[in-house]
């Protein structure tokens, strides 16, 4: 029975669990239940990835209505791969959240936190799995509303302004996507992505389709925090509770990257977006500026969470850069980086959250001497930090390796050099934290601190070990990403040929 509904389960499970958690109320029950559900969703998405490997595409018609009349869930390796990263990170973050949330969120709001987390997970899974452009908008709003709630749960008053700005930008982005989808619908009469793709080919140079494309791209860029539209992200990630930052940094914007990939490759077609509209140059320029501007911003911050937030924007730059190379190898490097970034940013934010749990501050000065006092946490931070920099044997190296190879494949020497130069900036911002932790000693009048609780260390170290494991044994990630990338390119090319005939 489960095999048949595999495509729907990762959405339905958290969606049904969320109201149950609200009714359960008691925070330990709520926590255990939410974690179990998230783990189950993770298990099913793992299964889904294997099925997608074997059969390329799984189509699930919700309500029994065939597409394009009903809503279709459509799974291929691309979304199954991203979904695995999202559900796995969600499960680990929920494990971690128990202690972290008890420290940072008022007790009466614990059940609300778990409910909102599950809603966010359900929304993200919905965005990933759906094959319907309007259904995507609905799930985008489910996840966004839950995200605003999660960000605003922190006890610091600054999280409120951050959440409000996030809400404004997010809603504008969603409305832009709505306008874009409306323009496509107007021209084609359908909302199913595959059907849209085949009918858009009939109107390649229509002004309506092109401005629809522009609106969708701008809307998605706001959601994924592409460079000039990223201003909502650093405050939101800085002031959100640690568990929320760890979850969102690894998932929310990455799902938006997936949405961009899906629209470019499945709906509009590579030829149309990149060759006729020239979007690859715009994306490439913005990505490079993002890498340097935001990496630089990360080096001058004093709050470590802000450092990591700016670093996230820079890392999104790497993903978009891979995408803008317009090759299967470039796309593959982007997809691998989505997965790998979830591993490293999750671990980094968890380590910072553990420091906040014990020290009560995430300022860079608070890290002084922690190398001795919290050795396990700081070791995790160090390894994940090395991964961000791109040191061999970590996942960061794998991502950068494929990105540089993809650039060199098209003899973009300058881009390869810029990617490496960007890593140097990462050395600086990670290095500043490590220097404070290992080389400076704690100020004598500060209280000595203990290591973080084991329930926080466990998921953190699982992520760190995953960083190392997938850095050495890259077969799973590269297989998944390369088959996804090839599949996307293959479908978009066959669609182009189909319209040419």
């Amino acid at each position, binding site marked *: 029975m489960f095999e048949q509904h595999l495509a729907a389960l990762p959405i339905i499970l958290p969606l049904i669990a969320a109201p149950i958690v609200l009714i359960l109320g008691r925070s330990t029950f709520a926590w255990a239940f939410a974690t179990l559900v998230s783990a189950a969703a993770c298990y099913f998405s793992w299964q889904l990835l294997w099925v997608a490997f074997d059969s390329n595409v799984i189509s699930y018609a919700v309500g029994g209505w065939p597409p394009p009349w009903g809503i279709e869930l459509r799974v291929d390796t691309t979304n199954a791969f991203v979904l695995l990263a999202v559900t796995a990170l969600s499960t680990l973050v929920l494990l971690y959240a128990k202690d972290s949330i008890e420290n940072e969120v008022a007790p009466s709001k614990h059940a609300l936190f778990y409910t909102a987390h599950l809603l966010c997970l359900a929304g993200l899974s919905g965005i990933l799995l759906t094959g319907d452009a309007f259904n995507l908008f609905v799930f985008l*709003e489910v996840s966004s509303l839950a995200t605003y709630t999660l960000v605003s749960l922190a006890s610091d008053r600054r999280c409120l302004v951050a959440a409000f700005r996030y809400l404004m930008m997010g809603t504008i982005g969603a409305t832009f996507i709505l*306008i874009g989808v*409306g323009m496509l619908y107007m021209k084609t009469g359908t909302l199913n992505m595959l059907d849209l793709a085949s009918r858009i080919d009939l109107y390649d140079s229509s002004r309506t389709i092109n401005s629809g494309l522009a609106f969708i791209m701008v809307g998605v860029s706001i959601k994924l925090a592409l460079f000039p539209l990223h201003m909502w992200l650093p405050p939101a990630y800085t002031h959100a509770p640690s568990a929320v930052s760890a979850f969102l940094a690894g998932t929310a914007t990455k799902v938006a990257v997936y949405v961009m990939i899906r629209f470019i490759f499945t709906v509009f077609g590579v030829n149309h977006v990149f060759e006729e509209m020239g979007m690859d140059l715009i994306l490439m320029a913005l990505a490079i500026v993002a890498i340097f501007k935001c990496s630089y911003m990360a080096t001058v911050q004093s709050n470590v969470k802000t450092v990591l937030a700016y670093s996230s924007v820079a890392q999104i730059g790497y993903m978009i850069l891979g995408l803008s190379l317009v090759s299967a190898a470039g796309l593959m490097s982007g997809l691998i980086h989505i997965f790998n970034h979830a591993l490293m940013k999750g671990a980094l934010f968890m380590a910072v959250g553990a420091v906040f749990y014990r020290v009560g501050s995430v300022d860079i000065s608070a890290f002084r001497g922690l190398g001795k006092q919290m050795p396990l946490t700081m070791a995790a931070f160090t390894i994940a930090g090395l991964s961000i920099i791109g040191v061999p044997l970590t996942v960061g190296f794998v991502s950068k390796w494929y990105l540089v190879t993809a650039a060199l494949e098209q003899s973009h020497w300058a881009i390869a050099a810029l990617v490496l130069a960007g890593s140097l900036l990462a050395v600086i911002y990670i290095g500043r934290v490590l220097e404070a932790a290992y080389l400076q000693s704690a100020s004598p009048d500060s209280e000595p601190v203990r290591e973080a609780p084991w329930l926080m260390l466990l998921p953190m170290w699982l992520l760190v070990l995953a960083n190392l494991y997938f850095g050495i044994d890259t077969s799973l990630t590269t297989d998944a990403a390369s088959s996804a990338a090839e599949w996307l390119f293959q479908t978009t090319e066959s669609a182009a040929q189909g319209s040419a005939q």
Partner: protein
Amino acid sequence: MSFILDYYNYWVVVFLMMTGFYIVISANNLVKRIVGLNIFQTSVFMLYISMGKVNGGTAPILVEGVDVYSNPLPHVLILTAIVVGVATTAVGLSLIVRIKRAYGTVEEHEFETQGDVI
């Protein structure tokens, strides 16, 4: 003339959308921004409903002796979007209430001067 008749509706709707959008990004007061956002969204709804209209058609409810109906699909989409809009509005307004309690003001430029925003 028929060109104008065919398109005037879209143009006015675009004008309304942009008025709402302008209020969203230019207003200082957070409540006014939410109002702007609602105007922006309502105007987008009008764009959708406009495309569902068929001249001489009636509301898509089956009636004896009528065979031209307007398109029900945009109506369904917009029903969903309206409810999504009010959900966002409710969360946004409660954030504003909390911001007022925490900062004592809901004017953008006034809490920027309080220094600890970022």
